[in-house]
């Protein structure tokens, strides 16, 4: 195993660990390029830039890059090899996403009843729905990619 202080972020499986390390490295290089570009842009007054927004953008950009690469790599569901296992996992994903939506909506509704919400109820519900949809889509795409990849590897 590679001796690195980010070991706690890496899975035990060798292939996954090395591939994720590559994604981290790619994200770091892209971030470096983004920083250099922003330094050049900030010298001229082409675009007005808010420091905090730029930092948040870079943070989310980096996380999104690694996350999307991981989902599309098809290595998340490494043991899903058969159509039966695929259907079972797909069912689990639907149950997980639906449970997440129900729990989020119930929490938001109860916060609203007790007057602890600073935004309108409908906004909270829309955000919950989008989050649940995102959870379902990312898991579903990851599952589908994993299944396609694994089908080719089965003995």
């Amino acid at each position: 195993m590679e001796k690195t202080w980010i070991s706690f972020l890496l899975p035990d499986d060798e292939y996954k660990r090395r591939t994720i390390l590559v994604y981290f490295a790619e994200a770091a290089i892209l971030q470096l390029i983004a920083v250099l570009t922003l330094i050049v842009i900030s010298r001229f007054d082409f675009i007005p830039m808010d420091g905090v927004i730029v930092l948040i953008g870079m943070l989310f950009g980096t996380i999104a890059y690694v996350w999307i690469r991981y989902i599309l790599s098809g290595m998340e569901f490494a043991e899903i090899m058969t159509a039966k296992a695929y259907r079972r996992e797909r069912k689990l994903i639907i149950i997980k996403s639906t449970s997440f939506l129900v729990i989020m909506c119930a929490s938001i509704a109860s916060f609203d009843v007790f007057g602890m919400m600073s935004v309108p109820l409908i906004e909270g519900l829309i955000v919950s729905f989008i989050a649940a949809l995102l959870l379902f889509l990312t898991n579903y795409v990851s599952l589908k990619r994993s299944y396609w990849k694994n089908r080719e590897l089965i003995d």
Partner: protein
Amino acid sequence: MKNKVKFTRMEQKMTQEQLARQVRVTRQTIGLIEKGEYNPTLQLCVAIAKALGKTLDDLFWEVD
């Protein structure tokens, strides 16, 4: 990298899942190694060789 992992494993009537469990990787990793789509570390090569009761030469050495 071409190798004889699949051939040797099948010769010993071992499944991908059993080998994966023995060397503590996923079945996908074993599948990728067998297809030559992933080059394992020396540590994993040794673990696979031990699990299959072969030497590194037997499994990973290419003879023209």
